């Protein structure tokens, strides 16, 4: 029935038969090799990476640095440009507080987009408020894409940062981030890219794009929670001081910060999660990237046609009709998003509802919330059928009297 080449790699589905997990933009399930990596580390390898002399600690440190190299290669970066963080959220905050805030004065501005998740909006809003600088929010088009013309107008010589997502967490649309990078370059604006949603579906190369910063969260790309990545272009590393200070980031008696990316990693680090992230990346590299892309593309088309059948209930998809990532959000004129999600839960379908930490976009679209389904490589066409059957039953119930 549920044939999918990769599904069996994820033990979660054997443990949860009957569950349709369509909340992958929030977090993904983990393949066995990631779980094995965590298990192995805590069973046999656990030690702090404290530059100690004993073998186990040195081994843990080596593995952690190998993980850093794997992440660097995955993103097309140098190893020294990779900072391990807790999450995408922490990464954005580091850039805002340690790079941008130092330069920002009241005559400057920061440009963000209405597509941003709050984690790539609130840090900028906060430092702009602190410096009395202007925060400019680029509009989204009717189709739910980034309005590049508006972006070009909003970026000027007083802009110090443009913070832009690579892909929307609720519309499934990609931003033209390569074009954005060119515009930023023309104006000598530092570009911060949020790749949190993109990387589970597509590769990205920081060197090719020529961005200044890029961040992601491991748990959205089949890796454990608690680990994120911040890419910092080499030339910015020296001037940035750490946000968190503590153990492991100074050398000598005069408390000088170490010069590499480790200066952003104060305190005892989550080595297991780093290794788990490296395993997830290796997993994504081992499976056939083109096959996954094709599968997800086909799922997208299938979901798309499914939505046409529920239009009669007043269901309206948000944003671009040409969805690029398997992320879809919808509203129903006659039913509240929470009721739809609650009924879908009854049918064992896990979806997200609400404003999806993207209040900017929602207020621009004039809606309060929606239901989002987001698929991963292990989802199947059968599950899409189950979802639409359940959606139809739910909508019939909820709209029967309207």
């Amino acid at each position, binding site marked *: 029935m549920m044939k999918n080449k990769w599904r069996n790699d994820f033990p979660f589905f054997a443990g949860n038969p009957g569950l349709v997990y369509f909340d992958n933009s929030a977090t993904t399930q983990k393949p066995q090799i990631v779980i094995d990596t965590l298990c192995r580390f805590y069973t046999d390898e656990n030690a702090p990476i404290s530059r100690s002399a004993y073998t186990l600690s040195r081994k843990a440190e080596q593995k952690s640095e190998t993980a850093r190299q794997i992440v660097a290669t995955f993103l097309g970066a140098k190893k020294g440009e990779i900072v391990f963080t807790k999450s995408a959220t922490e990464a954005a905050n580091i850039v805002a507080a340690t790079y941008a805030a130092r330069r920002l004065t009241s005559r400057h501005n920061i440009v963000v987009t209405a597509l941003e998740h709050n984690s790539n909006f609130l840090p900028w809003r906060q430092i702009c408020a602190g410096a009395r600088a202007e925060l400019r929010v680029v509009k989204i088009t009717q189709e739910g894409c980034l309005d590049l013309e508006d972006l070009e107008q909003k970026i000027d010589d007083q802009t110090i940062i443009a913070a832009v997502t690579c892909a929307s967490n609720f519309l499934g649309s990609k931003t033209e981030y390569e074009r954005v990078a060119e515009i930023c370059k023309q104006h000598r604006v530092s570009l911060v890219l949020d790749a949190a949603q993109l990387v589970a579906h597509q590769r990205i190369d920081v060197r090719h794009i020529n961005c200044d910063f890029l961040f992601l969260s491991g748990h959205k790309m089949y890796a454990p929670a608690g680990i994120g990545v911040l890419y910092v272009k080499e030339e910015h590393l020296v001037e940035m001081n750490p946000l968190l200070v503590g153990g492991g980031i100074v050398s000598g008696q005069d408390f000088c910060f170490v010069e590499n990316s480790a200066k952003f990693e104060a305190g005892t680090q989550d080595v297991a999660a780093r290794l788990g992230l490296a395993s997830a990346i290796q997993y994504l590299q081992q499976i056939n990237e083109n096959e996954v892309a094709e599968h997800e593309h086909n799922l997208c088309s299938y979901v798309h046609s499914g939505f046409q059948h529920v239009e009669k209930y007043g269901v309206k998809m948000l944003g671009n009709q040409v969805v690029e990532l398997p992320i879809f959000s919808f509203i129903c004129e006659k*039913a*509240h998003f*929470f*009721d739809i*999600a*609650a*009924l879908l*839960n*009854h049918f064992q379908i896990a979806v997200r509802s*609400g404003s999806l930490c993207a209040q900017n976009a929602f207020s621009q679209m004039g809606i*309060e919330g929606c239901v989002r389904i987001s698929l991963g490589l292990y989802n199947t066409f059968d599950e899409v059928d189950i979802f639409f059957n359940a959606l139809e039953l739910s909508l019939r*119930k*909820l709209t029967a*009297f309207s």
Partner: protein
Amino acid sequence: MLKTQQKLIKKLSQMEDELDIFDYFIDKALAGGKPDIRKSEYQIRGCASGLWVKVERKEDKLVLTADSDSLLIKGIALSICEIYNGMTVKEAKATKITFLDGFDLAGELNESRRNGLSQISGIIMKL
């Protein structure tokens, strides 16, 4: 004679399927009409779905009305209102709303909505 809440608990416990429970609350919400209470003074803050509750006293007895964007929340809120309606403030304060504890709506009701609904009792306690 069974009290309103006990009757409700009995009714819900007799339902075989969780969907019937949904139906019950949805029907209740639809029967509740559109009371004119969507005003900021009646709005319950901190509930992720809009929720409005008006508490009045008529001849020492409580009269509560509720409205919500969500049918499920509205149905549950109206059920809470029904339990308090007709009680004196003293009686209402001594009444604990327990009908939600009995069955598993936990998956559907996240923290903020539970919190929103429990604020109805919070209003009573402050009377």
